């Protein structure tokens, strides 16, 4: 936090309000379908990244299965609608529940693993989901994907759908902010920093890891449902392992374990491919290079490093002030 106390809260509230107003006004400022689509994807990706931030950024458990959960949500919601005529709200709900349930069931054995074993297990999970999307042609249509997804008539209006996406994204953001600024958030960071010490302080690590995992899966699933009804068409290509890697990369670049980092990461994921139109996967190269450089020189990411810098400045000024008013002794000469 850059400023403490009342000033800080006021500033943050003002900033949040401004952002909300801009978001609400956006469709009327520049109604261009291209930009609206971009903003839609921004909202959807924000949901995915905030979920990833909980399990990976805060709790420190490397999860390379986010794209899989995203896809599972998308397919569940769209297949229910297309094949069984389930209504939009129920389909969306199923899109959230299905990945969340999977995470709840598999989470316990998966999260017992650590480090690269955990990475491999989540890669395996994501790959199995992707393969199911590709191979189970009777159900999912295979590589062709699912066509003809229909929104309820009111939501055929793109502006209204934009508001739906962003309301959901903002609610998701508030959820994450609430959880991370209380004992939950501290428990997660404690687990990441030192699981043994966290346990010694009474934190049930397995429980908190599982909660984060389920939340991340649920949010990705919700994003998937919204995504499916946005484009009215989905195919397995959007849910491959590469996307999980891009998500992890942008999380780190933005600043894992910080809310601001999730936002920056989201912007990166959406904007970078647009800027690097050179050839289809060129943005992956750029992501990879930025990731390598960031890990090497500022592993806390953009937002994380900025916050540390401000905190350091604040500490130095406070220390100087304390010395000046005599409430802190001058540093002693080292013995």
């Amino acid at each position, binding site marked *: 936090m850059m400023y403490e106390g009342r000033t800080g809260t006021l500033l943050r509230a003002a900033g949040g309000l401004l952002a909300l107003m801009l978001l609400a006004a956006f469709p009327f400022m520049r109604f261009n379908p291209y930009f609206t689509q971009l903003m839609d994807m921004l909202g959807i990706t924000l949901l995915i990244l905030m979920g990833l931030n909980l399990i990976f950024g805060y709790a420190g458990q490397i999860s390379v299965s986010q794209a899989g959960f995203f896809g599972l949500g998308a397919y569940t919601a769209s297949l229910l609608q297309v094949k069984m005529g389930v209504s939009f709200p129920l389909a969306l709900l199923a899109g959230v529940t299905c990945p969340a349930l999977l995470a709840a069931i598999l989470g316990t054995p998966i999260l017992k693993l650590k480090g690269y074993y955990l990475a491999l297990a989540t890669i395996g999970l994501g790959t199995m989901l992707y393969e199911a999307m590709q191979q189970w042609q009777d159900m999912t249509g295979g590589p062709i994907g699912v066509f003809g997804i229909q929104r309820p008539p009111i939501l055929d209006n793109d502006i209204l759908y934009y508001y739906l996406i962003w309301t959901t994204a903002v609610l998701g953001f*508030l959820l994450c902010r609430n959880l991370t600024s209380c004992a939950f958030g501290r428990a997660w960071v404690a687990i990441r*920093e030192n699981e043994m010490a966290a*346990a010694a302080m009474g934190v049930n690590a397995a429980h908190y890891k599982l909660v984060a995992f389920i939340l991340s899966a649920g949010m990705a699933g919700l994003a998937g449902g919204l995504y499916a009804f946005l484009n009215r068409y989905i195919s397995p290509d959007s849910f491959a392992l590469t996307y999980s890697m891009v998500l992890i990369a942008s999380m780190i670049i933005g600043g894992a374990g910080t809310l601001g980092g999730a936002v920056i990461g989201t912007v990166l994921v959406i904007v970078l491919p647009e800027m690097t139109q050179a050839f289809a996967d060129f943005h992956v190269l750029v992501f990879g290079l930025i990731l390598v450089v960031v890990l090497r020189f500022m592993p806390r990411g953009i937002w994380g490093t900025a916050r540390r810098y401000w905190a350091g400045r604040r500490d130095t000024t406070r220390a100087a002030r304390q010395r000046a008013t005599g409430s802190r002794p001058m540093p002693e000469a080292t013995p």
Partner: protein
Amino acid sequence: MSIVVEKVTKTFGGVTALSEVTTEIKPGIITSLIGPNGAGKTTLFNVITGFYPPTSGKVLLDGRPIHSLPPHRVAALGVSRTFQTALLFEEMTVLENVLVGQHRSLAGGFLASALGLPRIGRMEKKGREEAMHYLEFVGLGRSAESLAGSLPYGKKRLLEMARALASKPRFLLLDEPAAGLNNEETASLGGLITRIKEMGVTVLLVEHDMSLVMDISDHVVVLNFGRKLAEGPPREVRTDRQVIEAYLGEED
């Protein structure tokens, strides 16, 4: 009201770290666990706090067996500990570290936390005030907003103690709290531990610093090669034949 260690044996592969150790940690006093390096002191700590299950034997708290409970459950029963190397949450502030110590009382339930209900905010505020008290108790009041990782070593150890105290334990287990401290810091640590005892917390400490042990302990247990060698008041133990032999050349 006490912790009873009953014939605890712990083997790792072919190595026997503890062998039929039996003792009782009586409430309200300071007990020190001493012994040459490798005697099994930290292993015993780990068994009591649930980090290792004993190969055989039992650990009872108020008559209830706790040796098969995971560490967080043992902690919830009022047994807190510090570690040989201060295991802090480096990327959190000093204050936040202590707040984790208060986790049991601050954890507010998922729905309430997710919705950001005012009750959670009130709990947090109270929690922070309490955390400041603990920090001031150990002398870290001014460092509350500093990053835990940036503290000098001595202060890190104090922070670990503050964090452990914040969980309002009945039993506080300190693993070599004086390691790396100079004489002045050790003396001040002794005063701190005595004040903790006066607050009603039972203290069990593993220590190598004999002057500290003899100074503040009410009861001393000696381990060697995983076996209990002797136990009793400090004066008795220091003159015990076997203890002297075990320590030949090690006393400072």
